[in-house]
C-alpha cells in the first residue's frame, strides 16, 4: 500500500520532536548533580577517579633511558621534574655505552670488552624536566665527572666537588616557589653514605649544600656541625619542601636519622627539628634497633603497634596552606600531622599530644617490609581537601580526606602495565589535579594519571575505604 508522503513527513517530524524533548529532559535532569560534583570534589566523601595517560612522558632524546625514578615534583608552572638514578640501569639497559679509552669497561664499570652491546641506550642525566604533554624541557645533573662519557651528550656538570658532592644514590626532588630545585641522596654503607641536600637554580647551577657527604655528627640531634659549622649534618635524607611563607626548608632526615629538620633555605642554617609525636630527643635504643624492613617482633598485634619513635626512613614531608606539616613515617605505616608554628621547639613535658603533634593516621597498618606510607601530596583545591599517599609495598595510591584523614579510595595495583605500579615511590599533583607518580626498584618509570570524574561503588572493585573496614 502506498503511504502518502505527507504522512511520512509528519511521522519524521514527530520523531524529531520527541527526540529533542527527550534530549532536553535528560540534559536538565543530569545537570544538577553533575554541577554539584564538580563544585565540590569531596561532596558525599567521593574520591576522584583517575585514568592513566600512556602518552606521557614522550621518548627521550639523545638515545637516553631513565633508571629508577626516586623523586617527582610539580613546579608553579605545572611542569614536572623528576630525579632518576642513571647508575641503576643494568648493563644491558645501558647497552649503547662503550668502553672508556684505555679500558674494557664503560663509565659505570659495565664490561664492554668488545664495545657497546646494542643500539640502545645511554643513561639520561639525573634531573629531567617535562611539560604536561611529556616533552623534555631540561636535563642536567648526574654522577660527577669521571662517571660520564662524552658520547652520552650530558650537559655541562655544575656540581663540582668538594663544594658540591653529588649523591651516590639520588633520592627526592622539590622545586620551590622561586623555581629553586632541591635534591637529596640516601646511599647507605659505613663509609660512603649520602648525608647531603643540594640546592640548584632551575638551569642546574649549584647554589648550596646542606650537610657533608658521609658525615653524621650527633645523629638526629645535630644543629650546625657540617659545612664548616654553617648547616646541620644529615643522615641519608629522603625528601624536602620549602615553606614559602618563611623560606624555610623542611628536610625528611631520613634513612639514618629519625627526624624532620628545618633550615634556612638560602643559607642552610639550622632552625629546629623534631621526631615522632613532636618529641625531642628522637634517637633512642628502640629507634636505632628498628631500621628499615625490620618488622615488629612475632606475636606483636599490628593494630596496636605504634612506636613512640620514627622508624627509618622518615621518607617525606609536606606543608599545607593551613599551617600543618605532614610526615611520612614509612615503615610504621603512618602519617603524622603537626602544627607548623608550635612543633620543633624543645618539648616539655614529653608525651604524645604535646609539642605540636596534631594527629596520626595508619594506612594498611599490617603492612610489613618497606611499609605503606611513602610520600604525600594534596589536591589543588583551595582547601587542599584530599591527601594522596603512594604505597610502594601494596602498590596503591591511597586517597584520604585531609581534614579527617578518612580513607576514601585507592587505585593502581601491582603490575607492569600502564596504570599499575612496582615500588611506587613518590607522587606529585599539578594545579588541575593530575597525579604524576615515580617508581623505583625495577619499576624505573614515571606515569601520569588524569582525573576523569568521580568514583562510584560500581567501579570500586579494589576500593578499601575506612567505611568498609
Amino acid at each position: 500500500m502506498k503511504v502518502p508522503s505527507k504522512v511520512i513527513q509528519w511521522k519524521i517530524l514527530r520523531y524529531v520532536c520527541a527526540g529533542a524533548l527527550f534530549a532536553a529532559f535528560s540534559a536538565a535532569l543530569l545537570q544538577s548533580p553533575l554541577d554539584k560534583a564538580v563544585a565540590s570534589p569531596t561532596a558525599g566523601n567521593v574520591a576522584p577517579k583517575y585514568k592513566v595517560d600512556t602518552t606521557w612522558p614522550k621518548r627521550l632524546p639523545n638515545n637516553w633511558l631513565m633508571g629508577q625514578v626516586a623523586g617527582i615534583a610539580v613546579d608553579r608552572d605545572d611542569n614536572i621534574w623528576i630525579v632518576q638514578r642513571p647508575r641503576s640501569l643494568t648493563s644491558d639497559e645501558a647497552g649503547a655505552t662503550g668502553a672508556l679509552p684505555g679500558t674494557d669497561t664503560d663509565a659505570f664499570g659495565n664490561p664492554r670488552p668488545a664495545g657497546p652491546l646494542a643500539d640502545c641506550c645511554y643513561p639520561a642525566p639525573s634531573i629531567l624536566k617535562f611539560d604536561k604533554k611529556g616533552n623534555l624541557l631540561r636535563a642536567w645533573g648526574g654522577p660527577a665527572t669521571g662517571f660520564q662519557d662524552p658520547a652520552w651528550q650530558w650537559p655541562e656538570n655544575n656540581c663540582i666537588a668538594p663544594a658540591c658532592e653529588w649523591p651516590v644514590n639520588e633520592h627526592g626532588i622539590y622545586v620551590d616557589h622561586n623555581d629553586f630545585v632541591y635534591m637529596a641522596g640516601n646511599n647507605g654503607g659505613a663509609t660512603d653514605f649520602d648525608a647531603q641536600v643540594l640546592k640548584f637554580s632551575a638551569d642546574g647551577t649549584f647554589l648550596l649544600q646542606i650537610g657533608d657527604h658521609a658525615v653524621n655528627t650527633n645523629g638526629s640531634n645535630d644543629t650546625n656541625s657540617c659545612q664548616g659549622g654553617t648547616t646541620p649534618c644529615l643522615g641519608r635524607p629522603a625528601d624536602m619542601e620549602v615553606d614559602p611563607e618563611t623560606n624555610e626548608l623542611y628536610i625528611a632526615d631520613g634513612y639514618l636519622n629519625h627526624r624532620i629538620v628545618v633550615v634556612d633555605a638560602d643559607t642552610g642554617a639550622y632552625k629546629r627539628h623534631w621526631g615522632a609525636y613532636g618529641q625531642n630527643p628522637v634517637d633512642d635504643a628502640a629507634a636505632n634497633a628498628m631500621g628499615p624492613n625490620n618488622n615488629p617482633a612475632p606475636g606483636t598485634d599490628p593494630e596496636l603497634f605504634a612506636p613512640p619513635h620514627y622508624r627509618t626512613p622518615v621518607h617525606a614531608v609536606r606543608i599545607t596552606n593551613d599551617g600543618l606539616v605532614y610526615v611520612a613515617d614509612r615503615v610504621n605505616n603512618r602519617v603524622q600531622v603537626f602544627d607548623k608554628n608550635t612543633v620543633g621547639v624543645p618539648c616539655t613535658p614529653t608525651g604524645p599530644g604535646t609539642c605540636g603533634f596534631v594527629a596520626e593516621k595508619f594506612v594498611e597498618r599490617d603492612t610489613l617490609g618497606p611499609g605503606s606510607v611513602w610520600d604525600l601530596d594534596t589536591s589543588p583545591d583551595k582547601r587542599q581537601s584530599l591527601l594522596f599517599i603512594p604505597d610502594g609495598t601494596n602498590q596503591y595510591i591511597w586517597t584520604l580526606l585531609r581534614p579527617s584523614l578518612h580513607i576514601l579510595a585507592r587505585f593502581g595495583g601491582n603490575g607492569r602495565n600502564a596504570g599499575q605500579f612496582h615500588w611506587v615511590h613518590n607522587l606529585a599533583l599539578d594545579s588541575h589535579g593530575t597525579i604524576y607518580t615515580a617508581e623505583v626498584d625495577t619499576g624505573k618509570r614515571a606515569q601520569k594519571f588524569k582525573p576523569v570524574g568521580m568514583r562510584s561503588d560500581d567501579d570500586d572493585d579494589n576500593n578499601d575505604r575506612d567505611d568498609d573496614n
Partner: protein
Amino acid sequence: MDHQHLAQRAAVALLMAAALLHAQVNTPVQAHDIPNEIILHGFVKPEGDRLHFITRVPLIMLASMNLAKRGPGYLDLARIHDPLNLAAAAVAKEIALFESGTRLNPVRMQGRIAQPSDSSFESYAQARASIAGPRLPENTNVFWNQGYFDAHLEYPIRSDRSDFSLDMKLAPGLSGRLKMMVRFMPPEGATRAYELHGGFGLVALDPRWHQAAWVFVKSGYAHILDGIDHLLFLLCLVIPFRRRWWDLLKVVTAFTVAHSITLIASAYGMVPVGEWFPPLVEVLIALSIIYMALENIFGANLRRRWFITGVFGLVHGFGFSFALKQELQFAGDHHLLSLLSFNIGVELGQILVLVLVIPVLGLLFRHLVAERLGTVILSVLVAHTGWHWMLERAERLQHVGWPTPDAASVATLARGVLLLLLAIGAAWLIARQLRRRFTVQKPIGDRDVV
C-alpha cells in the same frame, strides 16, 4: 660599564634572547637553555592625559645585558638600578603603543626586579603599587635568569577615549614560544584580554565595528583558502553539479548555513571541552570527504545531497571554530558581527574557488576526459587523500583521553543530540517551505544519479 654601551646592549638584549630561543628549537636540551616558552604580561590603561603601560618581562630576556651578579649567580641588586632604566627603554622600543595611529613616546619609566613567586601581576592595581613600592632587599637571592623585570611606562595622550593600538615587534615568527598577555582597561567598558605574539602587527585594543568586521572577513577568507580539507570537500560537492546552478546553490547554501550554526555555537561555548573533541572533528572532516567522493563514484540521489551536505557542514563548522578560537580576542565588543564577518570571509573564499574550479572542470570534461570517467577519476584521487588524512587523524585520536560514561558525559551527549535534532528539524522545515514556494522546474529522473 658606560651608559652608552649599556644602552646598546639593552636595545639588543631582548632580540638576542629571541634569537637564542629560535636557535634552540631543534637542538637537544642543554644546561643553560632558554625556556621553551617565554610569556610577557602587560596592562594598558588610558587615564586622563596619560596612558599607563605596566609590563612584566622574564629576566631571561635581559640575559645579554649581563647585569651585575654576586655569588653563584644571584643578581647584585645594589648595582643594577641604571641598567634597569635602560631595559625599560628597550621594552618601550620593542612594544610600540599608538594613539589614533600616532606612535607614543614614554615620558616616565620605572623598573624593578621581582621574584618568580611575586603574584602582583594578577591585577593592575597590585602591579602598579608593587612597582611603585619598595624594591627587594639588596640581600635577596634572585638568580639571574629566574624572576621578572617589571616596568611602568607613562605616555602623554590627547584623550583617554582615543583609539589605541599596540604593535609587539618582538621576535615575529616565534608565535607560541614567545607571547604577551595584554589586558587593555578602557575608561568605560570591560577589560579586554589579548594573547599576542610578534606576527600580529598592529592590534586595535578597542576595535570599532568596521575594524573588527574587516579583520574577520580577512581571517575567514584566508582560512578557507588555507584549509585544503575544506576545499577538497567543496570540490567533491560541486563535481556533479557543474551545470545545475539551482542544485549547486542549494548544496552550497546548506553547507554555509550548517557550518555557520556550529561555528557560532562554538564561539558561545556550546561544545564539548574535552581534548578528544578537536581530533574527533578532524577525523569526521576526513570522513566527510571520503563519503562525498564515494557518493560521486558509486552514484547518489543528488536531490538529497543538500541534506547530507548540511550534516557534514555542521562538522566543518566545528573545524572553522578551532581556527577562530585564538582570533576571537580581536572582536572587541562586536562578537556576533565578527563571527558573521568570518563567515562572509569563508563564503567569499568559497565563491572564488567555485568561480575558478567550475570552468576548469568544464574544460576538463569537454576536452580531456568524459564527464562520468572524469568524475570518477577526480573522486578517487580525493577519496585516496581523505583516506590517508583519516588514518593519520585517527591515530592522533587514539591517544587522547576519552570521557567515561558518567552523568557529565551523558548530559553533554544529550545536549549535543538536542542541538543536532533541532538543527535537522529546522532545516527540514525550511526545506519544506522552500519546496512549496518554488516548484521544481523539471522532474528528476535516473539521470540525476551519476
